[in-house]
Protein backbone atom coordinates (compact mmCIF):
# COMPACT_ATOMS: atom_id res chain seq x y z
CA UNK A 1 0.00 0.00 0.00
CA UNK A 2 2.90 2.36 0.74
CA UNK A 3 4.27 1.86 -2.78
CA UNK A 4 0.90 2.20 -4.47
CA UNK A 5 0.13 5.40 -2.63
CA UNK A 6 3.58 6.78 -3.35
CA UNK A 7 3.28 5.96 -7.04
CA UNK A 8 -0.15 7.60 -7.28
CA UNK A 9 1.21 10.84 -5.82
CA UNK A 10 4.67 10.95 -7.47
CA UNK A 11 3.34 9.72 -10.83
CA UNK A 12 0.65 12.38 -10.57
CA UNK A 13 3.17 15.18 -9.94
CA UNK A 14 5.43 14.04 -12.76
CA UNK A 15 2.66 13.68 -15.33
CA UNK A 16 0.94 16.89 -14.27
CA UNK A 17 4.24 18.71 -14.90
CA UNK A 18 4.63 17.10 -18.34
CA UNK A 19 1.02 17.76 -19.34
CA UNK A 20 0.95 21.22 -17.81
CA UNK A 21 -2.00 20.32 -15.59
CA UNK A 22 -0.74 21.60 -12.25
CA UNK A 23 -3.72 23.93 -11.75
CA UNK A 24 -6.21 21.13 -12.44
CA UNK A 25 -4.36 18.86 -10.03
CA UNK A 26 -4.39 21.43 -7.26
CA UNK A 27 -8.09 21.94 -7.81
CA UNK A 28 -8.75 18.17 -7.76
CA UNK A 29 -6.77 17.78 -4.55
CA UNK A 30 -8.71 20.49 -2.74
CA UNK A 31 -12.03 19.04 -3.95
CA UNK A 32 -11.09 15.49 -2.91
CA UNK A 33 -9.99 16.52 0.56
CA UNK A 34 -13.31 18.25 1.11
CA UNK A 35 -15.31 15.34 -0.33
CA UNK A 36 -13.55 12.80 1.90
CA UNK A 37 -14.69 14.56 5.04
CA UNK A 38 -18.22 15.01 3.70
CA UNK A 39 -18.38 11.32 2.86
CA UNK A 40 -17.20 10.29 6.32
CA UNK A 41 -19.52 12.70 8.12
CA UNK A 42 -22.42 11.66 5.87
CA UNK A 43 -21.99 8.06 7.02
CA UNK A 44 -22.30 8.87 10.72
CA UNK A 45 -26.09 9.04 10.97
CA UNK A 46 -26.87 5.78 9.24
CA UNK A 47 -23.91 4.20 10.95
CA UNK A 48 -25.27 5.10 14.38
CA UNK A 49 -28.67 3.72 13.38
CA UNK A 50 -27.32 0.34 12.28
CA UNK A 51 -24.91 0.04 15.21
CA UNK A 52 -27.84 0.64 17.56
CA UNK A 53 -30.00 -1.87 15.75
CA UNK A 54 -27.26 -4.50 15.66
CA UNK A 55 -26.72 -4.06 19.39
CA UNK A 56 -30.41 -4.87 19.81
CA UNK A 57 -30.08 -7.88 17.52
CA UNK A 58 -27.18 -9.09 19.65
CA UNK A 59 -29.11 -8.54 22.85
CA UNK A 60 -31.98 -10.57 21.41
CA UNK A 61 -29.59 -13.35 20.38
CA UNK A 62 -30.33 -12.93 16.67
CA UNK A 63 -26.74 -12.34 15.56
CA UNK A 64 -25.56 -15.42 17.42
CA UNK A 65 -28.36 -17.43 15.82
CA UNK A 66 -27.26 -16.24 12.36
CA UNK A 67 -23.67 -17.19 13.21
CA UNK A 68 -24.71 -20.66 14.27
CA UNK A 69 -26.91 -21.28 11.23
CA UNK A 70 -24.31 -20.29 8.65
CA UNK A 71 -21.25 -21.61 10.41
CA UNK A 72 -21.10 -24.88 8.45
CA UNK A 73 -20.83 -22.94 5.16
CA UNK A 74 -18.54 -20.16 6.33
CA UNK A 75 -16.18 -22.04 8.63
CA UNK A 76 -13.73 -23.09 5.87
CA UNK A 77 -13.44 -19.43 4.80
CA UNK A 78 -13.01 -18.01 8.30
CA UNK A 79 -11.22 -20.72 10.31
CA UNK A 80 -9.96 -18.26 12.94
CA UNK A 81 -13.43 -17.14 14.10
CA UNK A 82 -14.35 -19.17 17.21
CA UNK A 83 -17.57 -21.14 17.57
CA UNK A 84 -20.73 -19.10 18.32
CA UNK A 85 -18.87 -15.80 17.93
CA UNK A 86 -21.09 -12.90 16.81
CA UNK A 87 -18.49 -11.86 14.20
CA UNK A 88 -19.81 -14.39 11.72
CA UNK A 89 -23.37 -13.11 12.15
CA UNK A 90 -22.20 -9.57 11.41
CA UNK A 91 -20.39 -10.70 8.27
CA UNK A 92 -23.55 -12.40 7.05
CA UNK A 93 -25.59 -9.26 7.82
CA UNK A 94 -23.25 -7.14 5.68
CA UNK A 95 -23.19 -9.58 2.76
CA UNK A 96 -26.99 -9.81 2.82
CA UNK A 97 -27.31 -6.02 2.80
CA UNK A 98 -24.91 -5.87 -0.15
CA UNK A 99 -26.89 -8.46 -2.05
CA UNK A 100 -30.06 -6.45 -1.52
CA UNK A 101 -28.29 -3.30 -2.74
CA UNK A 102 -28.73 -1.33 0.50
CA UNK A 103 -25.81 1.06 -0.16
CA UNK A 104 -24.65 2.95 2.91
CA UNK A 105 -26.57 0.64 5.26
CA UNK A 106 -24.45 -2.19 3.91
CA UNK A 107 -21.32 -0.11 4.59
CA UNK A 108 -22.41 0.54 8.18
CA UNK A 109 -23.01 -3.17 8.76
CA UNK A 110 -19.67 -3.95 7.12
CA UNK A 111 -17.81 -1.62 9.49
CA UNK A 112 -19.57 -3.31 12.40
CA UNK A 113 -18.30 -6.66 11.10
CA UNK A 114 -14.78 -5.19 10.83
CA UNK A 115 -14.98 -4.07 14.46
CA UNK A 116 -15.90 -7.65 15.47
CA UNK A 117 -13.00 -9.08 13.45
CA UNK A 118 -10.65 -6.54 15.01
CA UNK A 119 -11.76 -7.78 18.46
CA UNK A 120 -10.49 -11.24 17.45
CA UNK A 121 -7.33 -9.89 15.79
CA UNK A 122 -4.18 -10.58 17.81
CA UNK A 123 -2.08 -7.80 16.22
CA UNK A 124 -4.20 -4.66 16.13
CA UNK A 125 -2.42 -2.75 13.37
CA UNK A 126 -2.14 -5.66 10.92
CA UNK A 127 -4.98 -7.08 8.82
CA UNK A 128 -6.04 -10.63 9.81
CA UNK A 129 -6.73 -13.41 7.29
CA UNK A 130 -10.43 -13.24 8.08
CA UNK A 131 -10.52 -9.50 7.36
CA UNK A 132 -8.98 -9.90 3.93
CA UNK A 133 -11.27 -12.82 3.06
CA UNK A 134 -14.27 -10.81 4.25
CA UNK A 135 -13.27 -7.81 2.12
CA UNK A 136 -12.72 -10.07 -0.89
CA UNK A 137 -16.29 -11.33 -0.53
CA UNK A 138 -17.58 -7.82 0.11
CA UNK A 139 -15.74 -6.48 -2.93
CA UNK A 140 -17.28 -8.93 -5.33
CA UNK A 141 -20.63 -9.43 -3.65
CA UNK A 142 -23.59 -10.18 -5.87
CA UNK A 143 -26.17 -7.40 -6.16
CA UNK A 144 -29.60 -8.69 -7.12
CA UNK A 145 -30.80 -5.29 -8.32
CA UNK A 146 -28.13 -2.94 -9.71
CA UNK A 147 -30.60 -0.05 -9.33
CA UNK A 148 -28.36 2.81 -10.54
CA UNK A 149 -27.29 0.95 -13.68
CA UNK A 150 -30.90 0.15 -14.55
CA UNK A 151 -31.91 3.79 -14.01
CA UNK A 152 -29.15 5.08 -16.33
CA UNK A 153 -30.00 2.53 -19.01
CA UNK A 154 -33.69 3.27 -18.91
CA UNK A 155 -33.17 7.04 -19.11
CA UNK A 156 -30.93 6.48 -22.14
CA UNK A 157 -33.90 4.84 -23.86
CA UNK A 158 -32.97 1.16 -23.57
CA UNK A 159 -35.54 -1.26 -24.99
CA UNK A 160 -34.90 -3.55 -22.03
CA UNK A 161 -32.99 -1.83 -19.21
CA UNK A 162 -33.09 -4.87 -16.92
CA UNK A 163 -31.72 -7.40 -19.43
CA UNK A 164 -28.25 -7.06 -17.90
CA UNK A 165 -29.27 -8.42 -14.46
CA UNK A 166 -28.52 -12.03 -15.34
CA UNK A 167 -25.17 -11.08 -16.84
CA UNK A 168 -24.25 -9.00 -13.77
CA UNK A 169 -25.05 -11.88 -11.42
CA UNK A 170 -23.05 -14.36 -13.49
CA UNK A 171 -20.05 -12.02 -13.88
CA UNK A 172 -20.08 -11.21 -10.16
CA UNK A 173 -20.23 -14.89 -9.23
CA UNK A 174 -17.11 -15.51 -11.32
CA UNK A 175 -15.41 -12.52 -9.67
CA UNK A 176 -16.40 -13.81 -6.21
CA UNK A 177 -14.89 -17.25 -6.79
CA UNK A 178 -11.65 -15.72 -8.08
CA UNK A 179 -11.50 -13.22 -5.19
CA UNK A 180 -11.95 -15.80 -2.43
CA UNK A 181 -9.47 -18.16 -4.08
CA UNK A 182 -6.96 -15.30 -4.33
CA UNK A 183 -7.47 -14.35 -0.68
CA UNK A 184 -6.99 -17.90 0.58
CA UNK A 185 -3.96 -18.49 -1.67
CA UNK A 186 -2.11 -15.22 -1.08
CA UNK A 187 -2.47 -15.40 2.71
CA UNK A 188 -0.12 -18.41 2.67
CA UNK A 189 2.65 -16.71 0.66
CA UNK A 190 5.77 -15.86 2.68
CA UNK A 191 5.56 -12.23 1.56
CA UNK A 192 2.12 -11.79 3.14
CA UNK A 193 2.36 -14.22 6.04
CA UNK A 194 1.05 -12.83 9.31
CA UNK A 195 4.29 -13.06 11.32
CA UNK A 196 6.11 -11.26 8.52
CA UNK A 197 3.70 -8.31 8.49
CA UNK A 198 3.53 -8.10 12.29
CA UNK A 199 7.32 -8.02 12.58
CA UNK A 200 8.08 -5.62 9.76
CA UNK A 201 7.64 -1.92 10.09
Amino acid sequence: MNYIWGILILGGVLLAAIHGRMAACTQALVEAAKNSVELAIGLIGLMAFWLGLMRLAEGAGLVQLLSKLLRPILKPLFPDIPKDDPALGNIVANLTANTLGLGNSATALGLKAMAELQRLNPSKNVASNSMVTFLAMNDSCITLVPATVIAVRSSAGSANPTEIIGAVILATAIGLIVAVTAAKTLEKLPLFRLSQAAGAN
Partner: protein
Amino acid sequence: MSEVLATALRRVSDWAIPIIAGAIVLTALIRRVKVYEVFVEGAKEGFNIGVRIIPYLVAILCAIAFFRASGAMDLLLGLLAPIARWVGMPIEALPMALVRPLSGSGALGIMSETIQTHGPDSFIGRVVSVMMGSTETTFYVLAVYFGSVGISKIRHAIWVGLIADVAGLLAAVWVCRWMFAN
Protein backbone atom coordinates in the same frame (compact mmCIF):
# COMPACT_ATOMS: atom_id res chain seq x y z
CA MET B 1 -40.42 -11.87 -17.76
CA SER B 2 -37.17 -10.27 -16.64
CA GLU B 3 -39.17 -7.06 -16.09
CA VAL B 4 -41.47 -8.83 -13.61
CA LEU B 5 -38.52 -10.38 -11.84
CA ALA B 6 -36.74 -7.03 -11.62
CA THR B 7 -39.82 -5.31 -10.17
CA ALA B 8 -40.12 -8.05 -7.57
CA LEU B 9 -36.45 -7.74 -6.66
CA ARG B 10 -36.71 -3.97 -6.41
CA ARG B 11 -39.70 -4.39 -4.08
CA VAL B 12 -37.51 -6.60 -1.87
CA SER B 13 -34.90 -3.81 -1.71
CA ASP B 14 -37.55 -1.26 -0.70
CA TRP B 15 -39.02 -3.47 1.99
CA ALA B 16 -35.81 -4.92 3.40
CA ILE B 17 -34.77 -2.21 5.87
CA PRO B 18 -38.19 -1.55 7.51
CA ILE B 19 -38.93 -5.28 7.79
CA ILE B 20 -35.49 -6.11 9.24
CA ALA B 21 -35.67 -3.21 11.71
CA GLY B 22 -39.19 -4.25 12.77
CA ALA B 23 -38.24 -7.90 13.21
CA ILE B 24 -35.17 -7.06 15.31
CA VAL B 25 -37.07 -4.68 17.61
CA LEU B 26 -39.95 -7.14 18.00
CA THR B 27 -37.64 -10.04 18.90
CA ALA B 28 -35.71 -7.83 21.32
CA LEU B 29 -38.95 -6.76 23.05
CA ILE B 30 -40.08 -10.39 23.37
CA ARG B 31 -36.70 -11.29 24.90
CA ARG B 32 -37.15 -8.37 27.34
CA VAL B 33 -34.22 -6.32 26.06
CA LYS B 34 -34.44 -2.64 27.12
CA VAL B 35 -34.72 -1.61 23.47
CA TYR B 36 -34.32 2.16 23.71
CA GLU B 37 -31.38 2.13 26.12
CA VAL B 38 -29.53 -0.63 24.30
CA PHE B 39 -30.10 1.02 20.90
CA VAL B 40 -28.67 4.34 22.07
CA GLU B 41 -25.74 2.59 23.72
CA GLY B 42 -24.85 0.89 20.43
CA ALA B 43 -25.45 3.99 18.32
CA LYS B 44 -22.89 6.01 20.31
CA GLU B 45 -20.04 4.30 18.45
CA GLY B 46 -21.27 5.70 15.11
CA PHE B 47 -19.65 9.08 15.54
CA ASN B 48 -16.26 7.66 16.48
CA ILE B 49 -16.14 5.39 13.46
CA GLY B 50 -17.13 8.24 11.14
CA VAL B 51 -14.33 10.43 12.46
CA ARG B 52 -11.79 7.59 12.56
CA ILE B 53 -12.06 6.91 8.81
CA ILE B 54 -11.41 10.54 7.79
CA PRO B 55 -7.58 10.40 7.56
CA TYR B 56 -7.69 7.14 5.56
CA LEU B 57 -10.31 8.53 3.19
CA VAL B 58 -8.39 11.78 2.69
CA ALA B 59 -5.20 9.85 1.92
CA ILE B 60 -6.74 7.58 -0.67
CA LEU B 61 -9.27 9.91 -2.30
CA CYS B 62 -6.76 12.78 -2.65
CA ALA B 63 -4.13 10.50 -4.19
CA ILE B 64 -6.65 9.14 -6.69
CA ALA B 65 -8.04 12.57 -7.58
CA PHE B 66 -4.52 13.90 -8.06
CA PHE B 67 -3.55 10.94 -10.24
CA ARG B 68 -6.62 11.24 -12.44
CA ALA B 69 -6.31 15.02 -12.86
CA SER B 70 -2.66 14.69 -13.94
CA GLY B 71 -3.67 12.99 -17.17
CA ALA B 72 -2.19 9.66 -16.05
CA MET B 73 -5.33 7.84 -17.16
CA ASP B 74 -4.68 8.74 -20.82
CA LEU B 75 -1.21 7.31 -20.55
CA LEU B 76 -2.55 4.11 -18.98
CA LEU B 77 -5.25 3.88 -21.64
CA GLY B 78 -2.56 3.91 -24.33
CA LEU B 79 -0.51 1.27 -22.52
CA LEU B 80 -3.42 -1.04 -21.82
CA ALA B 81 -5.16 -0.79 -25.20
CA PRO B 82 -3.25 -3.74 -26.73
CA ILE B 83 -4.05 -5.90 -23.70
CA ALA B 84 -7.73 -4.97 -23.91
CA ARG B 85 -7.78 -5.89 -27.58
CA TRP B 86 -6.09 -9.19 -26.75
CA VAL B 87 -8.72 -10.20 -24.14
CA GLY B 88 -11.57 -9.12 -26.43
CA MET B 89 -12.62 -6.03 -24.50
CA PRO B 90 -14.01 -3.27 -26.74
CA ILE B 91 -11.57 -0.37 -26.56
CA GLU B 92 -14.45 2.02 -25.79
CA ALA B 93 -15.07 0.14 -22.51
CA LEU B 94 -11.46 0.51 -21.33
CA PRO B 95 -11.88 3.91 -19.59
CA MET B 96 -14.70 2.37 -17.55
CA ALA B 97 -12.54 -0.63 -16.63
CA LEU B 98 -9.72 1.67 -15.48
CA VAL B 99 -11.77 4.08 -13.40
CA ARG B 100 -14.13 1.55 -11.77
CA PRO B 101 -11.76 0.42 -8.95
CA LEU B 102 -10.67 4.02 -8.25
CA SER B 103 -13.84 6.08 -8.13
CA GLY B 104 -17.52 5.17 -7.86
CA SER B 105 -18.85 8.55 -9.01
CA GLY B 106 -16.21 8.71 -11.76
CA ALA B 107 -17.24 5.28 -13.01
CA LEU B 108 -20.91 6.22 -12.93
CA GLY B 109 -20.13 9.30 -15.03
CA ILE B 110 -18.13 7.32 -17.58
CA MET B 111 -20.78 4.61 -17.75
CA SER B 112 -23.54 7.17 -18.41
CA GLU B 113 -21.45 8.90 -21.06
CA THR B 114 -20.55 5.62 -22.80
CA ILE B 115 -24.17 4.51 -22.77
CA GLN B 116 -25.29 7.86 -24.22
CA THR B 117 -22.67 7.72 -26.98
CA HIS B 118 -23.00 4.10 -28.05
CA GLY B 119 -26.58 3.35 -27.01
CA PRO B 120 -27.73 1.27 -24.02
CA ASP B 121 -28.50 -1.78 -26.15
CA SER B 122 -25.22 -1.83 -28.06
CA PHE B 123 -22.56 -4.37 -27.10
CA ILE B 124 -20.39 -1.61 -25.60
CA GLY B 125 -23.37 -0.23 -23.67
CA ARG B 126 -24.11 -3.63 -22.20
CA VAL B 127 -20.51 -4.35 -21.31
CA VAL B 128 -20.08 -1.11 -19.33
CA SER B 129 -23.43 -1.71 -17.58
CA VAL B 130 -22.34 -5.16 -16.46
CA MET B 131 -18.89 -3.82 -15.44
CA MET B 132 -20.56 -1.25 -13.19
CA GLY B 133 -22.58 -3.99 -11.48
CA SER B 134 -19.95 -6.70 -11.26
CA THR B 135 -17.12 -4.78 -9.55
CA GLU B 136 -16.58 -2.48 -6.58
CA THR B 137 -14.71 0.73 -5.82
CA THR B 138 -11.91 -1.32 -4.28
CA PHE B 139 -9.68 1.51 -3.08
CA TYR B 140 -12.54 3.28 -1.31
CA VAL B 141 -13.74 0.07 0.34
CA LEU B 142 -10.26 -0.81 1.58
CA ALA B 143 -9.66 2.69 2.96
CA VAL B 144 -12.99 2.88 4.76
CA TYR B 145 -13.06 -0.68 6.12
CA PHE B 146 -9.47 -0.86 7.35
CA GLY B 147 -9.55 2.79 8.41
CA SER B 148 -12.54 2.18 10.68
CA VAL B 149 -10.46 -0.18 12.83
CA GLY B 150 -7.19 1.75 12.48
CA ILE B 151 -5.31 -0.81 10.37
CA SER B 152 -2.66 0.48 7.96
CA LYS B 153 -0.80 -2.80 7.29
CA ILE B 154 -3.27 -4.44 4.97
CA ARG B 155 -1.01 -7.30 3.71
CA HIS B 156 -2.42 -8.97 0.59
CA ALA B 157 -5.77 -7.13 0.70
CA ILE B 158 -4.92 -4.67 -2.08
CA TRP B 159 -3.82 -7.47 -4.42
CA VAL B 160 -6.87 -9.56 -3.65
CA GLY B 161 -9.05 -6.52 -4.37
CA LEU B 162 -7.35 -5.79 -7.67
CA ILE B 163 -7.47 -9.46 -8.73
CA ALA B 164 -11.18 -9.44 -7.89
CA ASP B 165 -11.65 -6.33 -10.04
CA VAL B 166 -9.78 -7.71 -13.02
CA ALA B 167 -11.76 -10.95 -12.74
CA GLY B 168 -15.06 -9.06 -12.50
CA LEU B 169 -14.20 -6.82 -15.47
CA LEU B 170 -13.06 -9.69 -17.70
CA ALA B 171 -16.07 -11.76 -16.67
CA ALA B 172 -18.28 -8.82 -17.67
CA VAL B 173 -16.81 -8.84 -21.18
CA TRP B 174 -16.97 -12.60 -21.63
CA VAL B 175 -20.44 -13.06 -20.14
CA CYS B 176 -21.76 -10.30 -22.43
CA ARG B 177 -20.15 -11.90 -25.48
CA TRP B 178 -21.77 -15.17 -24.58
CA MET B 179 -25.22 -13.92 -23.54
CA PHE B 180 -25.76 -11.17 -26.08
CA ALA B 181 -24.07 -12.72 -29.11
CA ASN B 182 -26.06 -12.15 -32.24
